[in-house]
């Protein structure tokens, strides 16, 4: 991305005199800027009133685009799991189908946006912007699908390009509807626009049906209309699944072309300027085509129409000659090509890399280039262009896209799958970013933990548990703190919390969170203090159940095993005293007392 010109500056209103410096701080998904003054030796100045939150990407906050992100995520994951060992020819239809899926998701979004935009004028401008971008994206994607993924050969190529143009030129149908619903369609002001529109799109059957209405108004010119009808009906269209070879089709087409030309030379349609125009179009006359720029409205429509009527057997490798010349012919000298034009031209030149590069520059969100590049990489199309960084490019774009998702409070979960499928840096990016997901609730923390545990990210697991444990401890929720420490396998912290439990016991005479302590299980072994806590509680239970002998034995073992903290010995001795009253345990208790004394 060499010649990226610098974006025009985003001007942050600072509300005071210029000449101040701008301080900044990186945040998740935004950057904070504030007015300040940097000086080698202390700077003072008037109070700076504002800190501004500057954001780059608005898209992820749009509720309608969210559907796009969700559904395309689903398609993405499905694509990654296509088996590598299948031969390519089996995979092509799959890839084409996936490409169509992506496109239908784009279209669905577009429809929804339009509906919303239609509801309230306030939404119109931003949504219309978004719609036009999605439209452009779908246009480019569709062309890439035709040229790169489907890789139609000569013959089919033109048919696919025709479909492509028809899909993106809806106004003909709308005009046709208006015309047909009027009282006298043949006299409607847009009538000829519709007919010509059909012809330009190669929809000759529909053109014929429209012409019938005109013919009925001019019985005198019946023969002329019949001639046109014949010409239109006889135009050969290549049938890829038929038995006719491309050469045979070409011969047939030339015959027809000559026939149309003869009619033109014979002035068969001279008396009707519209039919004459149609005839000239059928013969592929460039000047006539260019006269109808307003009906074509884009240079690529002009390109496809020109190919349809001049060279329907165009080969993929020949496309770029025609594309370049059509672009030049269509744009008048005053206007320069737009970025969209350059992208389409690059596509016609089969310069995939340039397409991706130009799209990356022109678009704000990485969604489009990331998904398209990924698909093209799966079709092994990036390697074929001898780019040693081909798969690096794919990964680079996916990482950019996914990193952008990560700042969103729920979309971050989608990002995880994208990182999973980036073999080189995916894991480290995930590690870095998942740690930063705010742990607002236990449920969210558990969700994050599950993701880390599934991927054996043990350091992140430990860190998250530690953060939760610390938070619980600060809020004096000892039980929660303890269970998080256990999960973190943090012996030191578990010791600390156990101490607090024991201190609490000494102070209040009861334990809190008994449920937790009673059910520690093997986790008890995490730290000595924790073991002591668990066993001490067990002692209390035994005592409560009047199983004095076992209780006393447990107490003894606690002291002899030396896991009882010194500070607690008084308490233990005091606990032991009532046991002296119990006949059968008296001796055990004496042992306890003696062992205490022997150590001090």
């Amino acid at each position, binding site marked *: 991305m060499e010649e990226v010109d610098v974006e025009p500056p985003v001007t942050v209103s600072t509300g005071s005199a210029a000449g101040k410096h701008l301080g900044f701080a990186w945040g998740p998904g935004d950057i904070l800027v504030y007015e300040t003054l940097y000086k080698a030796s202390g700077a003072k100045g008037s109070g700076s009133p504002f800190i501004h939150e500057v954001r780059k990407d608005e898209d992820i906050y749009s509720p309608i685009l969210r559907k796009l992100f969700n559904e395309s995520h689903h398609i993405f994951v499905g694509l990654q799991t296509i088996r590598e060992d299948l031969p390519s020819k089996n995979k092509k239809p799959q890839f084409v189908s996936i490409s169509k899926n992506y496109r239908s998701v784009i279209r669905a979004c577009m429809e929804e946006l339009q509906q919303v935009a239609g509801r309230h004028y306030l939404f119109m401008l931003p949504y219309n912007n978004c719609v036009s971008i999605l439209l452009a994206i779908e246009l480019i994607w569709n062309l890439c699908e035709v040229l790169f993924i489907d890789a139609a050969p000569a013959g089919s190529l033109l048919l696919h390009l025709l479909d492509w143009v028809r899909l993106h030129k809806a106004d003909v149908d709308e005009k046709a509807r208006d015309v047909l619903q009027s009282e006298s369609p043949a006299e409607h002001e847009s009538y000829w626009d519709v007919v010509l529109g059909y012809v330009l799109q190669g929809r000759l059957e529909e053109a014929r049906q429209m012409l019938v209405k005109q013919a009925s108004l001019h019985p005198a010119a019946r023969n002329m209309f019949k001639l046109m009808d014949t010409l239109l009906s006889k135009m050969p269209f290549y049938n890829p699944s038929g038995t006719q070879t491309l050469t045979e089709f070409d011969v047939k087409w030339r015959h027809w072309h000559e026939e149309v030309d003869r009619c033109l030379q014979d002035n068969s349609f001279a008396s009707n300027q519209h039919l004459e125009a149609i005839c000239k179009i059928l013969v592929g006359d460039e000047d006539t085509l260019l006269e109808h720029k307003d009906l074509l409205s884009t240079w690529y429509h002009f390109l496809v129409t020109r190919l349809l009527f001049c060279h329907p057997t165009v080969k993929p490798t020949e496309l770029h000659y025609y594309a370049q010349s059509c672009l030049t012919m269509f744009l008048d000298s005053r206007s320069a090509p737009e970025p969209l034009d350059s992208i389409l031209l690059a596509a016609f030149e089969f310069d995939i890399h340039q397409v991706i590069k130009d799209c990356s520059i022109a678009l704000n*969100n990485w969604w489009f280039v990331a998904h398209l590049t990924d698909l093209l990489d799966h079709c092994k199309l990036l390697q074929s262009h001898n780019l040693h960084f081909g798969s690096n490019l794919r990964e680079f774009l996916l990482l950019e896209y996914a990193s952008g998702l990560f700042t969103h409070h729920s979309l971050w979960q989608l990002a995880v799958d994208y990182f999973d499928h980036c073999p080189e840096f995916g894991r480290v990016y995930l590690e870095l970013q998942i740690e930063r997901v705010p742990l607002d609730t236990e449920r969210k923390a558990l969700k994050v933990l599950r993701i880390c545990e599934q991927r054996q990210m043990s350091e992140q697991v430990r860190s998250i548990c530690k953060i939760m444990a610390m938070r619980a401890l600060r809020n004096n929720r000892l039980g929660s703190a303890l269970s998080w420490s256990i999960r973190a396998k943090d012996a030191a912290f578990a010791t600390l919390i156990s101490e607090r439990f024991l201190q609490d016991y000494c102070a209040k005479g009861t334990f809190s969170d008994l449920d937790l302590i009673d059910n520690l299980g093997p986790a008890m072994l995490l730290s000595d203090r924790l073991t002591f806590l668990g066993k001490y509680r067990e002692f209390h239970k035994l005592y409560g159940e009047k199983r004095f002998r076992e209780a006393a034995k447990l107490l003894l073992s606690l002291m002899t095993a030396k896991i009882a903290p010194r500070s607690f010995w008084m308490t233990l001795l005091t606990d032991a005293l009532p046991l002296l009253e119990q006949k059968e345990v008296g001796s055990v208790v004496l042992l306890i007392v003696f062992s205490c004394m022997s150590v001090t």
Partner: protein
Amino acid sequence: MFVARSIAADHKDLIHDVSYDFHGRRMATCSSDQSVKVWDKSENGEWHCTASWKTHSGSVWRVTWAHPEFGQVLASCSFDRTAAVWEEIVGESNDKQRGLSHWIKRTTLVDSRTSVTDVKFAPKHMGLMLTTCSADGVVRIYEAPDVMNLSQWSLQHEISCKLSCSCISWNPSSSRAHPPMFAVGSDDSNVAYGGKVQIYEYNENTRKYAKAETLMTVTDAVHDIAFAPNLGRSFHVLAIATKDVRIFKLAPMRKESTSTGPTKFEVQIVAQFDNHNSQVWRVSWNITSTLLASSGDDGCVRLWKANYMDNWKCTGILKGDGSPLTGSSGQPTAMSTVVGSSVQASQSALNGMSAGRYFFPPLDPPRAGTRYGHLLPPSSLIENCDVEPIQPQQQVLPHRLSSRALLPLPEAEGQ
């Protein structure tokens, strides 16, 4: 890029530093008005000031958060020659209702004889360690051995850099492949005194920090320095704010097994930008080290990005305009449908509509009810992403089983 919201900071003097916490939900600001303010971000994205207090007896230069593993801890440094550590105390319930919290000072570090210019916590895997640097040219590293008692800090290392120090940056990498390392920048303006960036590395044997490298090519005053997040690379990336923006690559050279000295580095300059055309005062990396931001004398913040081929470019500029907030300007011009018209490329940022450079001329949008209906995806593809509701922290209900009080002698027992 656009301004999403503006927060009235309410400091009575210049703000010198703003610092986000680890999760991006809290922020701390410090000012020449000698105070620090802590702000909390609510669910709807609004910032509320939950604490504001006087911290020093001079301008506060920097404020920084410790890793949340250590709780809610802040450090600040000031012109008054001290650095301080602050901890948030979980408040009384009525304070919480009012959305306030209290911060108390845990310690004051008074070892410096001059203004303390930077304060940074070391990477968390090293424990709770705080580093300061001062105009007297000394870097001090303190440690709190007991995380639960933040009033006890011990000065572990005192490193004299010989030149007045303005900034420090720790290498955030926790990889065992290399020992802990930090970089110090000096704002000494005498170019004759050699390299203004020094790299120090911890030596396991001597248990001390030793100088590993001096960047001799950086001879002008250095105002800020920042190691990039590591991303599992074998080399380190360091950004420097000096008379321009510079990015260095430091590749450790393989050590002989007998060598006990610090690592030798192969130093390469990766990029150098003089677009600010003036002194650069701050540099900072975003979380994934894919973007570097710099702020300069020209009053601009510039964003730098490397593409997949490692070529660096400026991808954005933020600039203060020095005038009060105006209404939305720069509406896109009326568009015609003929190709050749162009959309207003520079959509104004203030109206908040453009999120970037959309250059496409509007094509005819498909009308509703067209034949694209059949392209709608099957409903099985439509997933719902559950939005996390922000619930108040659940209180774990303690189990209160009635247990015998063992301390007093039970009279009824054991007769």
